[in-house]
């Protein structure tokens, strides 16, 4: 637990001074002075944190169970709230221990606070201001990301960043976040955030343009720069309300030819970023992740494949028809080549 607490980068003297300064002034309730919380969230690497409202911390109910997790709980709470410590404070061996307790306490309270309505609205402001950075994945086109944890207990993992477009998690780009515990955000926060603000989430399906669907309904979309939430996009899910997905998927090519999946080095992970073309397609998979074949209960490989061929309309069922494959390949590479310069905008 002790090792989990974010290392304090300032020397103890400075911290003491800082803590003393703020606590000496905080009794005057004026918010213009620097509170411990303000100071803590303004430290380098702490810009993912929002300011937890003091009334939230002051409500004992919100601190249920934390007493057992945080050493020197009372002193740490006093430090976080800038309360003048009582005269018996000489019990505490070293202020830096209380400091790390205060950080742990603040982090755990923060995890709870950001799940509240007020907390979520604090975080959405930060999200929309781009405080958490952007997704490094090229075809997410710098979608803003949200901090998330992989565990709710401190000391297990550092903070990660969740991209609402690709639904994946990434390591923060700077090492200054390597000392921020993932538990200070928690596992629930980012999924709950996007339940609260579904318009910031990408829809789980991605329709290729009508023209593209006619010529060859391909899973690799042509029009990647379709305006986000553009006029043509309607979400058929009445409970959804998500914006249009940036659904383009990278296709490996050698001299313009797609790398065949039959090659040993061929693509194996395309499914990781793929989305069905239509919202209804999501329901064509059963709870065991098998495509539902109409009128049949057995899932032989052949039926499975046939159903997939139907689904994607790619003619993938035709495994052994080489000629067809080649022709299709050619068509597609041309199409994509034509579209390439206009569709992929690269931030300079």
């Amino acid at each position, binding site marked *: 637990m002790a090792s989990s607490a974010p290392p304090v980068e300032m020397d103890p003297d400075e911290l003491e001074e800082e803590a003393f300064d703020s606590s000496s002034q905080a009794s005057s309730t004026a918010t213009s002075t620097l509170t411990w919380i303000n100071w803590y969230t303004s430290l380098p690497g702490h810009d993912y944190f929002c300011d937890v409202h003091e009334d939230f911390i002051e409500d004992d109910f919100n601190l249920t169970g934390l007493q057992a997790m945080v050493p020197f709980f009372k002193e740490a709470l006093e430090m976080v709230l800038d309360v003048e410590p009582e005269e018996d404070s000489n019990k505490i061996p070293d202020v830096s221990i209380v400091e790390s307790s205060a950080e742990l306490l603040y982090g755990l309270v923060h995890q709870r606070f950001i799940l509240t309505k007020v907390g979520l609205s604090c975080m959405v402001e930060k999200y929309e201001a781009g405080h958490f950075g952007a997704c*490094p994945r090229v075809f997410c086109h710098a979608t803003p990301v949200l901090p998330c944890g992989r565990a709710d207990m401190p000391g297990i993992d550092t903070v990660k960043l969740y991209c609402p477009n690709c639904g994946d998690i*990434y*390591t923060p780009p700077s090492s200054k976040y390597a000392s921020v515990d993932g538990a200070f955000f928690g596992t629930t926060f980012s999924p709950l955030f996007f339940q609260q603000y579904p318009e910031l989430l990408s829809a*789980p399906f991605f329709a290729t343009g009508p023209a593209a669907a006619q010529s060859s309904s391909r899973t690799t979309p042509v029009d990647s720069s379709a305006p986000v939430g553009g006029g043509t996009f309607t979400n058929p899910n009445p409970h*959804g309300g998500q914006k249009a997905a940036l659904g383009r998927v990278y296709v490996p090519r*050698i001299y313009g030819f797609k790398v065949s999946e039959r090659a040993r080095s061929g693509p194996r992970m395309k499914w990781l970023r793929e989305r069905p073309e239509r919202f209804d*397609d999501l329901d064509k998979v059963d709870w065991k992740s098998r*495509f539902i074949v109409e009128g049949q209960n057995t899932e032989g490989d052949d039926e499975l494949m046939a159903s997939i061929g139907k689904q994607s309309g790619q003619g993938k069922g035709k495994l052994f028809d080489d000629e067809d494959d080649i022709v299709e390949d050619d068509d597609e590479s041309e199409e994509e080549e034509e579209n390439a310069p206009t569709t992929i905008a690269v931030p300079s």
Partner: protein
Amino acid sequence: MDDLSTGSESDYSNSWISWFLSTKGNEYFAEVDEDYILDRFNLTGLNGEVVQEYSRALNLITDNLDEDSLDDDVREAVETSARFLYGLIHARYIVTSRGLSKMLEKYRKADFGRCPRVYCYQQPLLPVGLSDIPYQKAVKLYCPRCEDIYSPKSNRHGSIDGAYFGTTFPHMLFMVYPQMIPGKGQPVGSSSVADVNRSLANQQKSENNSGGGQNSLGSISTSSVANKAERYEPRIFGFKVNEDAKLSRWRTARRNAQISRLENLEREQGQTNL
């Protein structure tokens, strides 16, 4: 001339290429052999129309230019052209066998950075262009574990032209060195540079166990590697989120379909070979 490519100390500082490579921001570039540049055949299509000050730029790259005889403006133009020309030659060079082995060395050292995706476990990346035509797109980084592309972290690298690496390079590398294809799951042990090799050993082991068909190269099958890939699963108070879970199941179904497709194919091939 050969001394340069072997890197003898005295020549090292004088060579334009080694100066270029040592400049900050050029860490992605490999050293192109001098004889490769001097072979006119390799420069087919690169001429004054494509590269301004072509011959002077070429001379500068090969250290045959008397720079003192030029005034500052011209020298600057030649310098810019030389970088551009070197980039274009570089794109051709790195898909040759010598170039590939040099880039493989850099990949082993993780010179191109590591995949930011959490479930790629610090997988080293490879540079890739999205276009083979210069001035179109900046260089991107290809992760062989998740088979996706990412933007470089630093702006210095983010502004390098993608055409200096080309769209083909990383895929060619794994065609030539299929044994370097990383596994998809968590590598054994801690994350370190040695991951590249270790995950490979792990993959081979698992492949042999799964009994995947062996192809004519006497190598292991990669058809079911995707089974090992991990994914992030959003949960609210421990419960999966409906739509995310649906999408995840759909993707799993797509993955399984591909695997059974490839395994069927292998079986067919195995039968015809017998």
